Structure formats: C-alpha cells, structure tokens
C-alpha cells in the first residue's frame, strides 16, 4: 500500500511524498520533486560570462542573490580576479538581506501557523497580528538590503563580476545602520518563540558548510579537513524525482542554518553567539527540526552583522570602484551559504569568456536524502499510533523544517 501525501503547502515550489507500507509497517518514503525541470546549466552554456549571474538569479526568487553571488565568485575565481574588502563587505550585506528575508518568510509566514494551529499567516493574523507584523518588518528590511545591494527585491542585476552597477549611498548605509539596531529586539523574540518547538525528524549524522560564515574557498564538515565538493559529495538521478540526490561519502547529510551554527559558532556575532550557547545542548542533538531555532538565531546574527558592516563602510567611506575583469581560460567554483544551506556554482570558461561547463548544486538537492530519512523516521514512529491526517500533518512539518526550495532543486547537470 502507498499513502500519497498531497503536494506540500507552505513551501516554495511543487513537491510531494509517498509513504510505502508493507505488512502493516512503513517500508520506505519517496520524496518526489514534481516541479518541472528548468535546465539552467544548458541555458548558460556558451553564454558570455557577464550575462550569466543575471540568468542564474532566475533559479530562485527567495535566494536570487545567493545565486548571483555564487555565480560571480565562480566566474572571478576562473579568471583569477580578486576584489577588495569594500566589494566583499557589500556582497555580504546583500547575502545578509537574503537571510533576513528568507528566514523571516519561513519562520513567520510558513512555520508559525503550525505553532499556533492555523492554515496560514493571513488567518493567523486575526489573533496574532503583532507577530505577523514583526515577521513582515524583518522581511521588508531584508528586502531593503536586497534592493540596495542587488538592485531590486527579486532578480536584481546589480551584482556583477568585479563589482556592482551601482554602489550604495551614505544615506542608505545610515538607514541600514539605524534599522538593523532597531529590529534586533524582534529577532531576539523570535529565538524565544522557536526555542519552544518539539524535536522531530531524524537526527543528522553529517553536516556540511562553507569554511567562512557566508561563503568560502572550500567546504568543511563534522569530520576533519577542508575539501572540494567533488572529493566527498556524489549526485545521482532518481526515477521518481526531478531533483537529484546527493550523498556525503555515501550517506545522507544536512546543510542549512543548524549545520552552520554547529560548525561555525565561533564566527557568530556577540548576541547570536550567546543565544547559541544558551541553546547549544538542544541544537547539538542534531534533530532537523531545530533548524527553525537555528534560523531564528541567524536572524540575530544577520542584524548584528549588517550593523557592523554599515558602520565599517560609513567609517571608511565608499569608493565605488569596480575591479577590471579580463576573461581568460579557467575554472572556478563559487561556494555560498544560501539561507537554506550550501550552494555550489562550478564553471569552466573559455578564453573568449563564454561558459564551457557549468554545474550547480542547490541546498535542497543536497538535503534530498536527509529529508527522506527524516520522513521515514517520523512515519515509522507515527504510523498506527496516530490517525493518518495527524501523521501527514507532522510529516509536512518535517519537510518544512528544511525550508526546502523546490524550484531551486530541479536542474542539475553534469556534462
């Protein structure tokens, strides 16, 4: 017998799951990504490098800047271009905006209705209007950062190899400094709220992240040593899903806010670090549901860090100069922490600046096996114990804890 879950709600994109029952027991779970394939690597093949980050942004609306930045870093590494601190700080500011926008969307609009027992945030707003408004305020500020750095709320084209089309003004940076401080109170309240959630889903055994907090030159995991993705991560196609499945040394693994905190807590800002220590014991159990709490702590981190960056840039002043980019034959990988976890853009570029090879692996594809493992564990615990409706409700919450981005996950190619 197969129990078919309907298409997931309150997640980005189209997916569902099947629970396979044999002899009265849960035998297997299949996560089906039914969002149509979008063939981004084929789209970018042969295209001039300068236009590629704008195209890659279209992979995902919620984290378009992560894609632009990963793409730009991959291209710059292929050409051996180094950019000064001003440009890296601004990219970081944009990625922080994305964390704020994406995490607050996830926590307040998609997860909070589960906490309070509503089908959605709009209906939840009748009784918990303040909370919804707080979420929207954080989200709007995140989007403000995306507009300032990225050019617009969704699919801006301001992030370019070697720099930016337009640099922020002093007034914009002052506004960011002010707002990030004012909103910190709300983020701290979010941590208290999401710390109350029960553990559910599987406990992750392996975690993978970039070696810097928001991006890196290499990857790190719960095991010693830095590595490139090709050394430890393998992808394979599935017959029931448009997303491929990745494994770390043959096993399911976890990327996202919880893995970042567990692997990189020493890089956090002061208040975020204190909150991490306060909840460390809980987080270290590795239950995937604590990803929600980890995201709330990252809201605090993001606001503190945005404040630091704005201050630094205001103190030293903005020069607004791009680094010249000369195309040459080369290969480069951009590793970025998208809100949902590790994002990989890998390119080979020919000497006229056109893309000759491209591979993109997104967080949801990396988490695919871990989502299945969590559904299996949860279904085994609940099947026969609670009615089917409640079981499916909890399974949906388990999927939601990963904050899956299904649109992102469906276009992986190795040529």
């Amino acid at each position, binding site marked *: 017998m197969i129990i078919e879950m309907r298409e997931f709600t309150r997640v980005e994109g189209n997916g569902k799951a099947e629970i396979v029952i044999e002899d009265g027991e849960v035998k297997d779970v299949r996560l089906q990504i039914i969002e149509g394939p*979008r063939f981004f690597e084929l789209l970018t093949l042969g295209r001039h490098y300068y236009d590629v980050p704008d195209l890659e942004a279209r992979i*995902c*609306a919620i984290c378009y800047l992560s894609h632009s930045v990963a793409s730009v870093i991959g291209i710059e590494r292929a050409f051996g271009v180094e950019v000064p601190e001003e440009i890296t700080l601004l990219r970081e500011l944009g990625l922080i905006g994305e964390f704020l926008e994406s995490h607050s969307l996830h926590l307040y609009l998609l997860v909070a209705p589960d906490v309070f027992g509503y089908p959605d945030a709009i209906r939840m707003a009748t009784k918990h209007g303040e909370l919804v408004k707080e979420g929207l305020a954080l989200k709007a500020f995140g989007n403000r950062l995306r507009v300032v750095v990225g050019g617009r709320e*969704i699919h801006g084209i301001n992030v370019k190899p070697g720099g930016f089309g337009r640099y922020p003004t002093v007034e914009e940076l002052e506004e960011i400094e002010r707002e990030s401080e004012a909103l910190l109170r709300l983020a701290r309240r979010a941590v208290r709220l999401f710390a109350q959630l029960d553990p559910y889903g599987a406990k992750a055994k392996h975690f993978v992240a970039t070696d810097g907090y928001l991006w890196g030159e290499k990857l790190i995991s719960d095991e010693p040593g830095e590595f490139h993705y090709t050394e430890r991560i393998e992808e394979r196609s599935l017959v029931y899903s448009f997303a491929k499945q990745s494994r770390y040394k043959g096993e399911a693994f976890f990327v996202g806010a919880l893995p970042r905190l567990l692997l990189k807590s020493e890089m956090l800002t002061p208040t975020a670090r204190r909150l991490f220590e306060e909840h460390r014991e809980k987080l270290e159990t590795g239950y995937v549901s604590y990803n929600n709490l980890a995201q709330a702590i990252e809201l605090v981190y993001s606001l503190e860090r945005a404040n630091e960056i704005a201050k630094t840039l205001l103190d030293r002043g903005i020069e607004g100069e791009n680094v010249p980019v000369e195309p040459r034959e080369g290969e480069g990988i951009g590793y970025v922490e998208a809100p949902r976890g590790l994002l990989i853009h890998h390119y080979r570029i020919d000497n006229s600046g056109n893309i000759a090879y491209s591979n993109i692996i997104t967080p949801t594809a990396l988490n695919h096996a871990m989502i299945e493992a969590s559904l299996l564990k949860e279904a085994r615990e609940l099947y026969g114990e609670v009615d089917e409706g409640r079981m499916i409700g909890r399974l949906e919450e388990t999927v939601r804890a990963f904050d899956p981005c299904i649109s*992102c996950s469906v276009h992986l190619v190795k040529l």
Partner: protein
Amino acid sequence: MMDKLKLGVFELTDCGGCALNILFLYEKLFDLLEFYEITEFHMATSLSEGNHYDVALVTGTVSTQRDLNLLKEARNHSEYLIALGTCATHGSVQGSVELPIREKLKAVYGDGGDPMRALDSKPVVEYVAVDFALPGCPYDKEEVYQVLMDIAKGIEPVRKDYPVCLECKLNEYECVLVKRGLPCLGPITYGGCKAVCVRSGLGCIGCRGPLPGEVNPASEYEILKSLGYDDEYIIRKFKTFAGWEP
C-alpha cells in the same frame, strides 16, 4: 457587505518569484484582502477549498503534464484568468533552452527516460485563452495590485503602451545605450518596471518581453551591431526572456 471575490494562485514551473511577490505587497496585501478571499495559494496556505475562482493568477511555464492539468483546472474553474510573470506570458528563461525535451532530459538525468512526464517549457498563453497578461521577471508588484483592485471595482485593467525608455526619461536616468554603449533592450521592451536595471547603471535585459505595436527591433539590432556586439550575442539576448526573433 458584498461577498468577497475568490482568488486562486496557481504555480506551474518557475522560480517561485511571481507567487512570492504577492506576499511582498505587505500592507497592500491586507488592502486586497478587503476585496478578496484567497482560496488556493499553496506557497502561503494549507487551505485549498476552491472549485470556483473569480480571479485566478497563474505563474510559471507549462513544463510537465502536471502543470498542464493544473492550468486547465484553473481555466475551467475561473471567471478571469491572469497569466502572471514572463514565464506565463512569454516562456522566460527556461522557455529559451532550445533543445528538444528528450535531449535536454538526457543531458541532465541520463538515460532514465521521462518517468515524470516533462514537456518543453511553454508559456500559459500557448495553451489557454487568458483574460489579461502581465509580464515581468518578476512583474512590478504595484502593477498586480492595481490590476486586482481594478477587477474588484469592475474596471477592465489597462495594458501599458510604452517602452522602458520612457520610464528612464521620466526618472532622468542616463541613457546607458547611447552614453556608455552598454547593451540595453529598453527601447523595445514593454515598460512598467520603472527602468529598475538602468537605475543601477546597467542595460535593460528585456525581462518584460517586447512592447507590442510600433517598436523597431530591427533598428535596435543595428544599434547593437554598430556597438560591436556579434550576431549570436544579440540574437540570444533578444530570445532569452520572450523567445523574440529580431
């Protein structure tokens, strides 16, 4: 008080941005909810209670059999259907990957056939009649607000009739095509985005598709050629969002 209109949001294959942009309306979303009740919107709500929609917003391209079924469902059960965003109106970036679907699938997934029934990505407007088409990758959120308000008040929404260039002039942005020689599709692209890319000092990438009527793509083509861009580059740029032949 009169009954609220029933609004459904249907997502086919896309990046999620056109659905997300509705949530980015913030307070204005609550203004809309004075007139509308959302009965289908799976990114935002677990409720799904509609079998009739006064207005259906459909985003994304038809890229699987599932998308096609959902589109027909939306069309058959709605009074007023809006193709929302460039995927739905013109096919956008995924529609511009030109290989036949079999070859694309093989390149990405190997020899596993087509168990999930993928189709070549095509815009919604190629499959069903739509009552209004609002392009943009993404569309400007003020525009969708205005369109939904117009419909709620019984007014037929108006399609804009000017190119991005006009919005540059109104905002007094420097012309990046003439002054800096950047490839800019502003002169032939359907306006309504407030020339947001030119605001960043960069050329319009044509994400809203061609302005219908009296535009001159041939002369845009000649301008770009005279600036030193080669044929293939220009043709690709034209085709990327709207499958537009110069």
